[in-house]
């Protein structure tokens, strides 16, 4: 077989959050932008850590760390059941700060808009962005707007940068053997709701995206003594739970063992996932977090999460072990056992 195009050109898979994107970052991006780790960013977690955000050491006299994160959003469709690109942009950035253990303190918003985009739609999007910020109490501090000719951008694309502050940032690599894995709620809602909402599927479902800022749910843990028992956090967005867990296991050189029937999944999500042959563990969530907790504190953390409406379905789903370093194991419901590996990219439906 001749050398494939993905080795010489950017393809869609390079942006899909899976293995191929990781390779691209390692080979092409990090050598040019990563700098020496960690001094380049002046903090403990810089670009090279490929975490949900970066830390910046504060000037002398101030305690704690600033956390900075940025995200671009090109969701299709722009308005989907349960949210829109505005709420998604706000939640995405706020959630990246939250899983770094940081209270969001300011955000930016940049929009690239297609010529002819209706004002009314733009108003809805900006309103949704602002509403999500009010749930957290963080302001937008600056922004930017660009307009592109018809066809050069599909409707609208948003970029947000968020600044947060943390006594000490929580990474996604701090797992220790014995830790318990908590999920803050049901898995697969956002990805499956978006798939169902795309015209080509002709599906009428009740699926609703879970897009929401999770700071209000996690603040009671992060701003109490429980914080010291949280060893790692991550929000399972692109690539879903499977990608996030694998990344955490690899970075911490631990093994994560998950009990499949303990993973909360809605019936509607499970049904569509079986229909389309797409695993709910491999699609994006936009209002959930994986919280890795010291075993002594796991039950208390679970209770605290469940007190918030967003955490009503929270569950302990697994344990950190040492059996297979860097891998994720799934104990299946029937009593079988297998590896849960990193998804390759956007799932495509099966045909048989």
């Amino acid at each position, binding site marked *: 077989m001749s050398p494939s195009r993905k080795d010489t050109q950017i393809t869609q898979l390079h942006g899909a959050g899976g293995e191929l994107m990781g390779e691209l970052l390692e080979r092409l991006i990090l050598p040019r932008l990563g700098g020496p780790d960690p001094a380049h960013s002046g903090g403990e977690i810089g670009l090279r850590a490929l975490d949900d955000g970066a830390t910046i050491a504060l000037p002398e006299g101030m305690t704690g760390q600033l956390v900075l994160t940025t995200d671009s959003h090109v969701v299709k469709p722009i308005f989907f059941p349960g949210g829109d690109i505005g709420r998604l942009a706000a939640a995405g950035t706020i959630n990246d700060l939250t899983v770094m253990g940081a209270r969001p303190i300011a955000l930016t918003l940049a929009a690239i808009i297609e010529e002819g985009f209706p004002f009314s739609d733009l108003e809805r999007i900006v309103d949704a962005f602002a509403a999500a910020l009010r749930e957290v109490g963080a302001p937008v501090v600056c922004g930017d707007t660009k307009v592109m000719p018809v066809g050069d951008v599909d409707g609208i694309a948003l970029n947000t940068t968020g600044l947060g502050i943390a006594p000490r940032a929580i990474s996604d690599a701090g797992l220790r053997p014995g830790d318990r894995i908590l999920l803050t709620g049901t898995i697969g809602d956002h990805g499956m709701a978006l798939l169902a909402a795309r015209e080509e599927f002709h599906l009428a479902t009740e699926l609703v995206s879970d897009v929401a800022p999770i700071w209000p749910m996690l603040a009671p843990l992060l701003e109490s003594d429980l914080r010291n028992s949280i060893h790692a956090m991550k929000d399972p967005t692109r690539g879903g739970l499977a990608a996030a867990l694998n990344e955490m296991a690899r970075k911490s050189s631990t093994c994560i063992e998950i009990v499949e029937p303990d993973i909360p999944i809605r019936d509607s999500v499970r049904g569509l996932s079986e229909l389309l042959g797409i695993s709910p563990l491999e699609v994006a969530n936009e209002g959930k977090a994986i919280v890795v907790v010291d075993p002594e504190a796991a039950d208390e953390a679970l209770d605290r999460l469940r007190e918030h409406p967003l955490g009503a379905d929270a569950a302990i789903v697994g344990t950190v072990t040492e059996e297979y370093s860097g891998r994720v194991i799934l104990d*299946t419901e029937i*009593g079988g056992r297998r*590896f849960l*590996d990193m998804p390759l990219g956007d799932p495509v439906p099966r*045909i*048989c």
Partner: protein
Amino acid sequence: MSRAFHFSDPKRGRALADAIRILAPPDPYKIVHVCGTHEMAITRNGLRRFLPETVDLLEGPGCPVCVTPARDIDTAIAIARTGAILCTFGDMMRVPGTELSLDEARSEGCDVRTILSADEAVVTARQTDREVVFFAVGFETTAPMTAVVLLDDPPPNLSVLASHKLIPPALVALLDLPDNRIGAYLAPGHVSTIIGTHPYEKWLNDRRVPVVIGGFEPLDILYAIALILRQHRDGTPKVENGYPRAVDPEGNAAAQRLLDAVFEPTDANWRGIGTIPSSGLRLRDAFKAFDATERFPLDLPEGRDEVPGCRCPDVLTARAVPSDCPLFAKTCTPLSPIGPCMVGAEGACSIWFRYGGERPL
């Protein structure tokens, strides 16, 4: 968050595992299934953990895109290069042709579009004056949808490149390959909902191998394996329906009429196996006007299916498991696949790689 009947119930699972252990033969016994969905369920649920040491369970030619020969893909690309819009299922995109995959042809500028059902090709054709070609792959499950398109007043700018394949003739061909030693077939539930039980009887009844139709839930599969082992122990090989809640012995008569109205059996080339008599479907004369190979007469060289060192032919004929191949998970991964079984989402190598089938835990 519970389902009406619990098809992964661990208690029932243990009961079936006990039955399988009691029924297990003392000598090595190879059960072959021919369905990517079966392999997915077996590997994803870790079901091989329930099999006794003497029993092997392998996927044969169960991935429709994997058995599509390179020449059919070459043909599709050649048609797309004439400026036609080529519509096909997502799984087909990355399967290697002789030089390029459809995905690579698209990057090169060809208009190749993925669709989820055959009627989307019709919608595409109605919205354009350009030629639209539906590259139709799949077993008896997907072929009726292609037939519906052709029977329902298709737009004149639509044509079909048919690469459909039939399962029962392939089961026979596999038995006739040298050194196969296939003990029994776990027959595919989806295909059987269409064809029923009779075609297996017609093709396989004088071959004295158990053929048990199985569903796709963990308990369905363990149950079908128990039925196979019981037939083997009792020396009563036959076609048995282990999936009666979905499969009628007569099959789906409406779907069969559609198939018969549009297609007739023809010899077909299966990647990794070769030509199998009466194992493919070609358009009947009445539909020749919609046959893409008639509309786009091409003179292509023979395709090249095989890659040196790649054991896909052995995997597709159930003579090897993916980890027997020296390339598996080393130079051949889903990111840089060498053979089709690592490309197709239903291919054994891809499933083993993605769902940790390389070693039972």
